[in-house]
């Protein structure tokens, strides 16, 4: 049998079966079409303007490395006129970041881009390892996610940059859509699909130029371009809903390769069907998204490496429990309105879920307004931002350094690091 020819150039031998549509392509046509599609995404959504300074959220993993490489290529090829900077976060997970940060440092040299590394300890006074030590492995992804989100924005601010691009790919977006359906989170369902989050009012916009790119194609691109990236998985456990959604996405892709793209499409369409009172998004103004950048859990998978559907279940069990309680409480509520003789334990104010819609809507009607956190001054929709709230909880259980905690400055965290060094040395 004669070797199959590339479906595009029809001259070279096809070596790659495109994961997205099973088209048989040669290496250079694959690379060309992969880049062309990202260029298409960037131009049709008017993502950048000439002269923009863009921070690339770089973890050293495949997604952000491919993003950096493709953006550099396209910037030069099509004269976007962008100034690209690599921005890395050091969560402080021993053995997880050391090697990947080394990779980012090499990338900075390879792509001739400036690099800024921001540490959790520097920003929050806590490394992820310390967080896990304090709260255990359960639920630590929330901390990591909230902290990372702000860390990128704060890092960008330090650099005087107001646009951060991240390596979220189509698989991540599809996973988030299914996860929000499973968690029953309509506001996030409405927000998670837009390519840009954060509106003109926010100091830092975020976007995902790889939103339509398949993870498998990103891996292929990295491989064929011989990119230098680091493969690792986060050492800590993923949340059950995301893990569950991720394994579903993988199975769907196996059964029908277009499914990932189809889920993304469904998500975009469904975002328009979320009632305005819930989403806070007016469909008249196109995709104006308020404040999701101050909201930590929209896109947790980002730098977490692959989650591979491990399912700790705790998160789902917790939600199941809460839903059941709501259901019970609301069934008591029905009893009241039906004025059937009832026992003394009817807890009218206890219900939070099942018959919640009117309540929830009422709550959501209070539009989130952009303000700043009273503690750290970072933009937030609440008085105290999510990161500071989490920090408060953490710091409460850390008596030996309680005095320093309120002062979130370089000095105290440096001092803390030293103290911890001492503590470790002594132990």
């Amino acid at each position: 049998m004669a070797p199959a020819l590339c479906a595009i150039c029809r001259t070279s031998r096809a070596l790659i079966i495109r994961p997205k549509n099973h088209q048989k392509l040669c290496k250079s046509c694959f690379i060309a079409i992969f880049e062309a599609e990202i260029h298409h995404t960037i131009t049709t959504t008017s993502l950048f303007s000439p002269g923009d300074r863009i921070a690339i959220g770089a973890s050293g993993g495949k997604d952000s490395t491919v993003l950096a490489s493709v953006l550099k290529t396209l910037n030069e090829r099509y004269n976007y006129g962008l100034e690209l900077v690599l921005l890395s976060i050091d969560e402080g997970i021993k053995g997880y970041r050391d090697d990947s940060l080394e990779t980012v440092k090499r990338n900075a040299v390879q792509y001739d881009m400036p690099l800024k590394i921001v540490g959790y300890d520097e920003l929050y006074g806590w490394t992820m390892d310390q967080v896990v030590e304090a709260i255990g492995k359960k639920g630590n992804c929330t901390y990591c996610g909230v902290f990372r989100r702000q860390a990128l924005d704060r890092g960008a601010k330090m650099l005087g940059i107001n646009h951060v691009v991240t390596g979220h790919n189509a698989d991540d977006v599809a996973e988030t859509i299914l996860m929000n359906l499973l968690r029953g989170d309509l506001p996030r369902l409405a927000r998670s699909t837009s390519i840009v989050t954060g509106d003109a009012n926010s100091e830092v916009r975020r976007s995902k130029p790889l939103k339509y790119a398949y993870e498998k194609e990103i891996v292929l691109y990295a491989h064929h371009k011989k990119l230098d990236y680091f493969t690792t998985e986060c050492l800590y456990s993923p949340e059950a809903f995301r893990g569950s959604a991720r394994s579903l996405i993988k199975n769907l892709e196996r059964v029908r390769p277009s499914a990932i793209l189809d889920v993304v499409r469904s998500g975009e369409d469904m975002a328009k069907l979320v009632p305005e009172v819930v989403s806070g998004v007016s469909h008249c103004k196109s995709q104006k998204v308020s404040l999701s950048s101050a909201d930590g859990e929209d896109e947790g998978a980002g730098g977490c490496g692959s989650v591979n559907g491990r399912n700790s279940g705790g998160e789902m069990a917790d939600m199941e429990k809460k839903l059941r309680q709501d259901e019970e409480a609301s069934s008591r509520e029905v009893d009241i309105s039906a004025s059937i003789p009832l026992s003394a334990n009817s807890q009218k104010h206890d219900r939070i879920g099942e018959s919640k819609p009117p309540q929830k809507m009422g709550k959501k009607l209070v539009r989130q307004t952009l303000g700043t956190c009273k503690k750290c001054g970072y933009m937030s929709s609440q008085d105290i931002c999510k990161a500071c709230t989490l920090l408060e909880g953490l710091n409460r259980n850390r008596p030996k350094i309680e005095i320093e905690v309120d002062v979130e400055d370089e000095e105290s965290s440096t001092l803390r690091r030293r103290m911890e060094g001492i503590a470790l040395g002594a132990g």
Partner: protein
Amino acid sequence: MSGKEETVELLRNSLCKRCHEENATHSIRSEQVCHKCFSQYVTTKAVKRMETYRIRGSSAKPPRKLLLPLSFGPSSASLLHILDQHIQGQYDRMNRAAYELFVVHIDLYVDPVDRKDSSELLEKYKIRFPRHTYSSFGLEDALLLDGIEWKSLHIGQPNESDGKPTTERLQHLLGSILSATSRSDIASTLLTRLLVDVAKRNSCEGILFGDSTTRLAEKTLTETAKGRGFSLPWQVSDGDAPYGLGFNYPLRDLLKKEIVIFSSLATHTLAEIIIYQRTSSTVSASSKLTTIDDLMTQYFESVEENYPSIVANVVRTSSKLQPTSILDTTACGLCGLPVAEGTDGINGWGGDQNSDSRPEIKDGHYGVLCYGCSRSING
């Protein structure tokens, strides 16, 4: 003692938490109840959803006619059983009923043996529930529907002039679709369109589907995965479908496992006229034969086991999605649902960056297909 044994032991020794008379034999979520109370629970949940079809006032209006699709599975059989009793109750009290049922079975298989079995089974239903009108069709009857733009489908167009029987043409049509998911997607679309057509021709006001909470949750994720997210408000919520009649899901507050138990309760003697599907855990290992529907059935079977409230919450969530205004829309040539201008087909949106793949418009005729149908036909 293992957890399971403990539960069994607990069940054996405890009285029903509701009536405090009989022994508890079943559980409703976390409550242990006897079979009577369990049956009562299921019936009440379903009948509550039929509030709109209560007898109101004294004026003797003619009963409203509703189509009940009967697949012979546990859900539709249980729904028929419950509504039959509901109607009987109305007769007993008022000597008239607010609605009547038009029970329709549609044969999905064209094999003569299957057809014979199914018509025999339908006879048993007629004997068992004699009050209602019955009718049956074959899926191939969908090929005769005017509402479908066969031309725009570009798939083994059913040609009436070639003289072949419709069953053969159906086989040819479905056989020409290579992927298992697309095949089952198109078959179920044809099924819905046929039901709607039958309902309209027999002046039914609406269709009562037997979908459980679990089934609706599956559907939410299945349709999302097939790129049909836009259609969810019409597929999981009670209310007017764009076809000009109402879709209702009276079993929407019940889990699949609850309905299966209900249908097998000895007192109902339903089990012998129900066809129980193989469990999905045996779904084919080959991804060629597995469909997205299979995957979701399998997935929710496991979620339902441990997290039933999460299943219900998925349905509550997707039911909150609001249908788009049907102004400025065109009906999809296959599924018939409204497609907003410029959103038809799988090309020309953000996720389609490759304009070369756009099909050429042949002979100026390019009908409107929604994204989901377009994917099943072209992709």
